[in-house]
């Protein structure tokens, strides 16, 4: 029987009402009195020496207030990088400067050179076209391997090369891995590309800076997943504004998928310019501008080798990746191909020896950073593709090969530094076999064949490290931040609650699911709980939402704060009923004395806390408000098994997705409806990568896929309906809710399932030479592979 309220109920989302009636308040919906409008002048070439910027014509254009170039940004620091990776020789990564406006050189198409601030957006745009940068073009650095050649042109002259770092993990395993691969019964090798993607949240980025001369306070309204992180980075490193004089507000945000984690130049500029000009400054990104200024994702070129014994047991794994950083280091870029990628290379399997090498490379392209999954899709794709290839080479059923190698005992310490606390990979695979109806595949294949289509079935597993968190651990790995989360629970005198969280909802439904948790703990109606997020002025210092961490880390902070509330409320109830606090029970929103019929209502206790006439003032303070900071002691490890069936048209190479089934173990589920939706969206982005999406640069470094006319976003008629199941639940062992996080799973788990399915279809159809096709599997690529 499904629950109708509290933890486990598919409560309808309360935020939907405002979104469905046009009353959402996104950043671009905010207009401040007297605001001016900014338009960025961006480099149209990939690489060049910036010899000067002629702003004289632009300054005279109608409505222009001021034109800014780098020399006008006195006292403004560069954009900081939040993660320092140490290379395999023990040296810190090479870390170039990242100016707010280009200085000396332009390094990618879209690199901001100047900003026009004018009375209207149209005037700013018109004048921006009159700004004349004087650029001496340089050869662009685009090829990842070529960028590391001894005589390669350098993106940053002050660095010794285009190599950001050469990372080895675990360096001590390297020789053993080499030996195991050299002597194994069978080695499967695969070269692959995990192509560059553009995240494309539907809401373009917006920033509005505001300065109050009366108080000296600055405010930034921005499309961010983590307003506190922006306040810290921008305040401390870029503008030199202490936290107490800087407020960052991220109101309703229209999707993020990672791209709105980072601190961007436009945020710093608008905050700076508002003070410099004495009026609010607003910038709204055009979509074509987003394509060349939002951080991109993925862009790895990888060789992976898997060594197996004659029974198909995995002996060793070696991967070598070139990862594209783009022209500058975006906020968390260095962590993505390293700690978010290398630590997941064990997958769901007992591979005793693993070595991961990653060379991170600067190129004249848009910076690359975390995009939904961030490193984990790249790890999963290589691993699950090479396993599939190995199964085919060794004549072992791909599911059986996976099962033979599953981790089955927990906790399990991988050879790549993480410890899986719990899981049951056979259970999710059993469920997949059941609901994907593998038994009926042959009959479906025959039907497809009768219509001239090649049908294939692809299966894979995935594991991810979520709840990105343990500060002591990420600190050792190079994070320049803690990754706890914070919550304040304020109980009002008449019993209603306000929960202020450092997590940020930009589609995840926190206003509903977080309220379910608190209401469940106290036994109240969910409507008595209000969730506040997105404003540094009224939420505790938390680290925001990414890495599927909100419920696992942010929800846990809420649980801890609510536990404190309950403990204090019990003391008040005990006083009111003249009983001992340890005898007080809380059930359905009422306090009772165990073994008696004495009880007081929730509202009686909350009123007593604020009207403390009859109150134990000598023992406890009045009021009922508690804050908790929660820093977990491990990541969480959601895992699952996915299946995809496709039909390939041998005449055209077109791939049609016939069905997609996901079985996930997310531990405890708070709102099944929201979890389903998160998985659907993740799968759509994963299938988008597998079938359609690719950021394309030409040989001059021009971004060819620079609009929705050229970058193929998945549309409704590109995708099937999905079947998702999360009935296999092994609760996380180290957080109070037992939750693991569900936001990225679909994007991590789905690309290999689709590619495995297409390779399967082609092999069954007689194209046995095809062992791999790089994503996206467009008709032309599939057709070419068949020729």
């Amino acid at each position, binding site marked *: 029987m499904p629950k109708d309220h509290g933890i486990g109920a598919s409560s309808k989302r309360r935020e939907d009402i405002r979104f469905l009636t046009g009353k959402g308040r996104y950043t671009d*919906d905010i207009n401040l009195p007297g605001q001016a409008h900014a338009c960025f002048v961006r480099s149209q070439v990939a690489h060049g020496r910036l010899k000067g910027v002629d702003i004289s014509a632009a300054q005279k254009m109608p409505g222009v207030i001021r034109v800014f170039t780098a020399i006008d940004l006195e006292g403004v620091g560069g954009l900081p990088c939040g993660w320092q990776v140490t290379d395999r020789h023990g040296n810190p990564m090479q870390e170039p400067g990242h100016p707010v406006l280009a200085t000396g050189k332009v390094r990618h198409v879209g690199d901001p050179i100047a900003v026009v601030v004018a009375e209207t957006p149209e005037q700013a745009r018109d004048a921006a076209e009159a700004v004349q940068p004087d650029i001496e073009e340089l050869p662009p650095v685009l090829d990842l391997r070529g960028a590391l050649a001894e005589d390669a042109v350098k993106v940053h002259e002050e660095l010794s090369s285009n190599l950001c770092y050469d990372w080895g993990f675990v360096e001590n395993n390297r020789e053993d891995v080499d030996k195991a691969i050299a002597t194994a019964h069978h080695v499967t090798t695969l070269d692959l590309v995990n192509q560059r993607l553009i995240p494309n949240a*539907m809401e373009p980025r917006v920033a509005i800076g505001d300065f109050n001369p009366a108080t000296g306070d600055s405010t930034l309204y921005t499309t961010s997943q983590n307003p506190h992180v922006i306040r810290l980075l921008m305040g401390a490193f870029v503008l030199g504004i202490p936290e107490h004089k800087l407020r960052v507000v991220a109101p309703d945000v229209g999707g993020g998928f990672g791209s709105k984690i980072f601190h961007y130049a436009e945020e710093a500029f608008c905050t700076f310019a508002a003070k410099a000009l004495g009026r609010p400054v607003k910038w709204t990104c055009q979509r074509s501008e987003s394509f060349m200024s939002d951080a991109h994702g993925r862009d790895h070129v990888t060789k992976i080798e898997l060594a197996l014994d004659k029974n198909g047991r995995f002996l060793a794994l070696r991967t070598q990746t070139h990862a594209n950083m783009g022209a500058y280091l975006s906020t968390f870029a260095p962590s993505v191909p390293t700690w978010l990628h290398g630590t997941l290379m064990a997958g769901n399997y007992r591979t005793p020896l693993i070595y991961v090498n990653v060379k991170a490379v600067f190129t004249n392209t848009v910076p690359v950073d975390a995009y939904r999954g961030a490193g984990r899709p790249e790890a999963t794709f290589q691993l699950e593709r090479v396993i599939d290839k190995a199964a085919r080479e060794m004549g072992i059923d791909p599911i059986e090969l996976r099962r033979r190698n599953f981790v089955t005992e927990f906790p399990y310490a991988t050879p790549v530094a993480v410890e899986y606390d719990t899981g049951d990979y056979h259970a999710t695979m059993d469920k997949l076999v059941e609901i994907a109806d593998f038994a009926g595949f042959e009959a479906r294949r025959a039907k497809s064949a009768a219509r001239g289509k090649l049908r294939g079935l692809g299966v894979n597993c995935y594991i991810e490290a979520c709840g990105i968190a343990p500060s002591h651990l990420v600190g050792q790995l190079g994070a320049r931040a803690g990754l706890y989360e914070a919550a304040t629970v304020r109980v009002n005198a008449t019993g209603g609650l306000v929960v202020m969280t450092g997590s940020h909802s930009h589609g995840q439904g926190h206003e509903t699911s977080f309220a379910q948790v608190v209401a469940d703990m106290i036994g109240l109606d969910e409507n008595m709980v209000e969730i506040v997020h997105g404003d540094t002025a009224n939420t505790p210092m938390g680290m925001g939402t990414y890495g599927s961490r909100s419920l696992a880390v942010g929800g846990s902070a809420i649980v801890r704060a609510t536990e404190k509330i309950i403990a204090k409320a019990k003391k008040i109830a005990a006083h009111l009923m003249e009983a001992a606090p340890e005898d007080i029970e809380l059930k359905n929103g009422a306090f009772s004395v165990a073994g008696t019929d004495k009880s007081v209502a929730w509202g009686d206790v909350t009123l007593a806390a604020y009207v403390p006439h009859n109150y134990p003032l000598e023992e406890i303070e009045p009021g009922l408000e508690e804050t908790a900071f929660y820093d977990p002691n491990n990541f969480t490890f959601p895992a699952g098994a996915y299946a995809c069936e496709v039909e390939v048209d041998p005449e055209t190479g077109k791939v049609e997705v016939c069905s997609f089934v996901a079985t996930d173990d997310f531990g405890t589920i708070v709102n099944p409806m929201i979890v389903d939706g998160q998985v659907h969206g993740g799968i759509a982005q994963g299938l988008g990568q597998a079938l359609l999406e690719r950021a394309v640069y030409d040989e001059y470094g021009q971004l060819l896929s620079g609009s929705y006319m050229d970058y193929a976003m998945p*549309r409704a008629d590109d995708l099937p309906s999905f079947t998702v199941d999360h009935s296999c639940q092994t609760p996380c062992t180290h957080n109070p809710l037992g939750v693991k996080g569900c936001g990225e799973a679909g994007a991590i788990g789905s690309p290999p399932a689709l590619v495995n399915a297409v390779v399967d279809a082609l092999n069954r159809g007689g194209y046995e030479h095809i062992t791999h096709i790089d994503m996206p599997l467009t008709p032309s690529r599939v057709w070419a592979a068949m020729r």
Partner: protein
Amino acid sequence: MTEVSMTVNGKAVSGQVEGRTLLVQFLRETLGLTGTHVGCDTSQCGTCVIHVNGKAVKSCTIFAQEADGAQITTIEGMANPDGSLSPIQKAFQDYHGLQCGFCTPGMVMSAAALLAENPTPTEAEIRAYLSGNLCRCTGYHNIVRAILAASGQGVAAE
């Protein structure tokens, strides 16, 4: 600047516009109806879909002057007269057909236009009709279910 007048959500409105002012700009900036969104600059994303004289139109594809005298409905005009959610809006909530909410106004307006043209569409017809509306959150799965439900057709429980 030119004066334009139109009826928006049943109310007569007018305002001064430049020749280049798009209808979506007039709605958002002049009238303050910010429920209609702008998600791209190539008329691809569909977040700005409204109804002009009863037809679904991307309001970034026409100038405000072209809508002079038109009957316009935006997302702000879609709720029942008492302010409660209309059946299509309710179905989007019941079937979790939205996440971040940014594409939602355009989706609801497209869905309403679809059901006016075709009261009982198949899943394939819904997907084809929505191909001009991008959503990055839902994978379209629950949007399709919501529209099936709003059309009074059965939707399997999940």
